[in-house]
């Protein structure tokens, strides 16, 4: 893991890689993140930088890899997944977050977005299936509940080393 991290740094800074922060643009060149539609959210969630530029230190990098590895528990994974899907960082998944999530999944570009009617229907169905207290948003426990019954979740979270 250390090797991977140091490869992202320019040559001069490799010796003191432990204390340097890697800018977001370099992180996004990692092969696993390159094709991922949630790349920006992942960087935002794992970055502990104070200036909000989403750069990651070595500890942040390790955090990210450990959450995505096979040995993380599903609680940890679902916790981080919730934070990644929460686009406005308000602690719940409301309609706007779900809309952005679906648009990320179907791809960028005009023809790959669902129509408004379809989007409404889809969000209605999702809320029906997972919103238990019927408040129109999905909070962390509802999310973890629904994801624990989902057969594909455990399979699909592994990042290859």
């Amino acid at each position, binding site marked *: 893991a250390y090797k991977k991290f140091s490869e992202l740094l320019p040559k001069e800074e490799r010796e003191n890689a432990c204390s340097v922060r890697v800018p977001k643009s370099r992180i996004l060149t990692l092969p696993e993140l390159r094709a991922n*539609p*949630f790349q920006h959210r992942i960087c935002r969630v794992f970055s502990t930088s104070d200036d909000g530029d989403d750069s990651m230190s070595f500890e942040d990098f390790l955090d990210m890899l450990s959450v995505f590895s096979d040995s993380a528990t599903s609680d940890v994974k679902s916790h981080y997944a919730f934070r990644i899907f929460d686009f406005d960082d308000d602690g719940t998944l409301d309609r706007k977050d779900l809309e952005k999530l679906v648009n990320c999944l179907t791809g960028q570009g005009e023809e790959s977005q669902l129509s408004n009617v379809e989007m409404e229907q889809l969000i209605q169905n999702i809320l029906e299936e997972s919103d238990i*207290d019927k408040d129109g948003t999905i909070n962390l426990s509802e999310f973890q509940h629904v994801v624990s019954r989902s057969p594909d979740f455990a399979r699909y979270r592994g990042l290859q080393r």
Partner: protein
Amino acid sequence: RNYQQDNIKYLSEWEQWKRTSSRSLKKVLNEVKELSSYLELWRHDIHSIEGKFGTGIQSYFSFLRFLVLLNFIIFILMFSFVTLPSIISKHGIFNSSLAKIPPKNIEPHCTVYKPSGNEGLVYFYTYLKDLLSGTGFLEVTSLFYGYYTIDAAWLSVLRYNLPLAYLLATFAYLALSLLWIIKRSVEGFKQNLVHDEDQFQSYCNKVFAGWDFCITDPNAARLKHRSLQYELQTDLEEERLKQKIADRTMKEKLRIYSLRIFINIIVIAVLSGCFYSIYRATVFSQENSNVSIRHDIRTDSIGAVQYLPSVVITLANFIAPQIFSFLITFEDYSPAFEIRLTLMRCVFVRLANIGVLLFSLWSQISYCATEECKACGYNYELYPCWESEVGQEMYKLMIFDFIIILAVTLFVDFPRKLLVTHCSCKPVQWCGLREFGISDNVLEIIYGQTICWIGTFFSPLLPAIATIKYFIIFYIKKISLIQTCKPAARPIRASSSNFFFLVVLLIGLVLAFIPLGISIAHIPSSKACGPFRSFNTSWAVVPHTILGFPTGLQQVLHGIASEAFAVPFFMVICLVMFYFIALAGAHKRVVEQLREQLVMVRFDPLFCTPKV
């Protein structure tokens, strides 16, 4: 690792040895598995296709590979049990010899068969003509039934019963195909059942856990985006349609049902039109070639007439699906059901066309006007060796099918690609590149495989031709896919497609049983050629052999074939079937109950805990 090494010091020697040996055994097994996966044919090609075009198209190529292997095994079977002994005994290798026993109690005129093996001076193009239609010099080779006019063979000192071997090899390859297909489809069936039952939280599952985080290639990512979009859209549309169907009034229902009945009548009319034209074409082609034989004229214009049935079949196979996909838009079904129904109709057209061809051939062969003809049981004048004739028709169908696939790829796909890339006018761009139509291609190769199954009895080397044909088709389709096709706008799920292909293949196999059964058991075998000269029908060799067994064995076999055994056996099988159906029903009910319990659990704990 340190912990393990420390542990080892405390274990006895016996334990240590057991542990190291099991570890090395696991390593060896893993390496063997890896090696055997390298031996798999075209593993790398299919992998790269999956990465670029998705799992639906990859399943088509895996299916093609399966057919190549199946045909190769069938060829090995027929070759080693039928062709090889014939060749050995005919050429006297290993001190072997053969015996041709002239059939007793048969009128002499039935046994006259003089195939012209192209002796003397012939034009070169007659060789080409013969190659394409299986007549002339090909007719006397081991390709066709007529070569195997051997009643008994002696390989060194063993007596080899060739007629029995021929029949048993036929049954063996049919049984082998059946078992192999069923084995493959069972895996797909299980997956299908499991997948269907998972309607519980399908939307949440797809949205929250839909993205595969292992994807690193942007092409694969694009594919995944598209397939996710398509899946979500289809699910939503199905739901909307279900709502619409539930909301239908009585008047609308009546209108829809009467429209559907009307369209089905049109479909039946189209089918009858196809069948009738095939029948007329076959009769016409046979009459024309027979006229020339009867008057001993060697006509040179045979080519088109010989191939007329194949041409008509190919045209019907091309036009009928277009008509069906046009008609189904009026019937107002859900999209998934629409696709399935159109496919079923196309499958039926293709397979029934072969059946009609064979039926018209048989009506020609068994048409008997004179007394002498009735004595032989078939039309001995025109068809002294009718099995070879049928074999030739199957051979022509197969060659023509192959030529059409080649021609379409060369003369339609590549020019289209050239047009689209170099000409930027509106209509050409609107046409665009061809999409790889999985179902059309699959039906094509299943059609070819059904011809191979039917034809192998009449032409034992046909599986070899089929193997080579599918081998070449793999590369043609792969090149055509990569160079001239654009990725599908509607990605299809692989597991359901696999199962569907195998089901259709199974239908083809079952449909191939029917003509073979009729030829073997019902139509009298030709008395002038072939291994079944001395028997009434081809099947008659089995009772004849059984009569040669010791009496005890004979009685056992008679007992098994009698009603006293068959009826109780049938009843036991019915009971077993009912048991399994009841078991499946019980399991389904348990699953429903568990599901309801899960829904209850959803609400219970959260009522008690305070809101977060």
